[in-house]
């Protein structure tokens, strides 16, 4: 069974499934764009699940007095009231039984057990399923960036992907915006220099340089970079956080054995280039030394959060301890 297409090749039932906001927004937008390409006058009605008025979905789904094509968009049905779930099931059943031809129902389900029945019914009724899987690990973020450029018909080189994920990868919507801006502002292949121009001054980018240098064992250079970053007004707190996350990757990689980075990427939740980088850095580290470094970073975090008198000294001491641990002195 499959719901017959209405306009623009869009079927009457569309399910957007998954927690990632950016991807879900995009799935809804592209569905509406496809509809508009054929029916510029399509009336879009958005219903918010957490402010749902019982019965309104059914009401909107019934044919309007003046005709015309309608799109009903229900977001966040996984947090919806029982009434919304019941109304959605009713409308889905009706549409599946007799596709009205002038109505498209788009339902967004972010995850979890609630609303599972709606999800299953939609799938069974042949709804088009658009996935919005979570983008959490750095590996997923790297793939996301690559695809962002690919879908614009552009290319970005691996070093630039890496720099971009490091600089703005904390927040996926910010990452998406950064990709859009880089693509709009440039031509040809996007490289690391361009990313550096746009995002090199960010806390994260600077924090990464400090962390990498310290973990590579170049203590004097790491201290110099740190001084420079702090003089530029950077807060010690995020710098500690970056060192902690880099160190975490080092430990993960050192426990993962020899396999090719591509095949380890998934189990470690890291991008292949991150694995390669962490492997290079892991040279010269013993398991005990890594342990000492982890303890130094946790102590520094406590100190920069107010546990110690001098946050700058706390960070410098952590970097010195990391350097000493690595050389085993």
């Amino acid at each position: 069974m499959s719901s017959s297409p209405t306009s623009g090749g869009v079927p009457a039932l569309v399910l957007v499934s998954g927690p990632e906001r950016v991807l879900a927004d995009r799935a809804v937008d592209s569905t509406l764009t496809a509809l508009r390409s054929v029916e510029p006058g399509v009336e879009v009605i958005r219903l918010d699940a957490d402010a749902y008025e019982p019965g309104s979905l059914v009401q909107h789904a019934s044919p309007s007095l003046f005709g015309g094509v309608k799109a009903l968009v229900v977001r966040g049905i996984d947090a919806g009231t029982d009434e919304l779930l019941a109304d959605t099931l009713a409308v889905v059943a009706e549409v599946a039984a007799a596709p009205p031809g002038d109505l498209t129902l788009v339902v967004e389900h972010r995850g979890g057990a609630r609303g599972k029945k709606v999800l299953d019914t939609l799938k069974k009724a042949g709804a088009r399923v658009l996935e919005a899987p979570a983008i959490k690990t750095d590996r997923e973020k790297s793939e996301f960036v690559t695809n962002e450029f690919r879908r614009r018909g552009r290319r970005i080189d691996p070093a630039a992907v890496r720099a971009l994920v490091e600089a703005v990868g904390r927040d996926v919507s910010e990452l998406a915006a950064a990709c859009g801006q880089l693509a709009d502002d440039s031509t040809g292949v996007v490289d690391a220099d361009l990313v550096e121009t746009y995002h090199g001054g960010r806390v994260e980018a600077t924090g990464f340089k400090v962390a990498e240098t310290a973990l590579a064992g170049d203590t004097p250079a790491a201290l110099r970079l740190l001084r420079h970053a702090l003089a530029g007004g950077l807060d010690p707190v995020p710098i500690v956080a970056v060192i902690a996350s880099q160190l975490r990757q080092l430990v993960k990689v050192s426990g993962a054995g020899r396999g090719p980075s591509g095949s380890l990427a998934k189990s470690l939740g890291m991008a292949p280039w991150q694995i390669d980088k962490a492997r290079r850095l892991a040279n010269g580290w013993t398991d005990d030394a890594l342990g000492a470094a982890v303890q130094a970073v946790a102590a520094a975090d406590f100190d920069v959060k107010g546990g110690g008198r001098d946050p700058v000294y706390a960070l410098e001491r952590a970097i010195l301890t990391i350097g000493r641990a690595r050389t085993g002195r």
Partner: protein
Amino acid sequence: MSVWADLVGQSRTVDTLTRAVADPGSMTHAWLFTGPPGSGRSNAARAFAAALLCERGGCGQCHECRTALDGTHADVDVVATQGLSIQVARARELADAAAHRPSVGAWRVIIVEDADRLTERAADALLKAIEEPVARTVWVLCAPALEDVIITLRSRSRHVRLRTPPVRDVADLLVRRDGVDPSMAMYAARAAQSHIGLARRLARDEGARIRRRDVVRMSTRIRTTVDALAAAADLASIAGEETTASSTERDAAERTKLLETLGADPAARTQPPAVRARLAALEKEQKTRATRFARDVVDRSLVDLMSAYRDALLLHLGSPVDLVNEDLRPDVEKVAHAMDPTQLLAAMDAITTARERIEANVPPLLALEAMAVSLRLPRR
């Protein structure tokens, strides 16, 4: 069954409170109940309220007793916070309420369950009300320990200390009140270290028992830094799952309710600025609550983990007492075999440090990682 029946192992406290109910000369207008988590502070406070309002001194059966116990009595105000603190606005409301005479009963009882979470300004607001007692109004403040409550409030209230109830008594309560099988009740009371609420959960929820066992067994499996970070990640993710599971539905329901209360059009695509501000405030509160909850879950796990090392230390000292982890004795023996008393104490220090760091806003994962590194079993 009297209102005091479920207050196990607290006979001295029950004596003090029943005397106060019976004899006006032993009564006072401000009380401070302290006792370790799970000892039944807030239950004691509610039972006291019921006894004051009941015509028969706390029969446990009448309408007054039942409504006082479940917190719905018109003359009983119960303040509990899920968040990190009780704000001054709430404290002022209470101070206002305290000035009114009881509406139906003999007393107005105001119970503050987390007096340790009063902000400084909130405590000041309460202090004014407590300093000027109103006839027929009783304050009952609850906190884990005396030091957790600011000194001005402490000095103006009568202190009642609840002790950690004996394991046996907690087990009996589970059997009697919750119909738990006796051997399961004994296991749960012991594993929860007499924390009544936790014991009940362990007795009834297999998932909780499995999670606890996994946590305790971490003491036997950390050998390298790589192991340590993996164990820390496990601990942190258990807490994360529990937090999400407990908050998602409640958060959505609160949002709907707020929109209703504000009379906002729930179907509107964008809300007016005033409504948006209230929604933003609610979201902030929910986030704070989730943070608190996640911390509490991690903290509870660390208490469980700590018990493995305490048990191992007891084995070294040859103390002929029951272990907290009697059900995991072989695992505890493994730890005792691998670590000498000095090393066990160092492990316990590391756990305490992690708890302090998390309380001081160090990201839980990082604090747990550093702790787990210190828990590596010595090489031989």
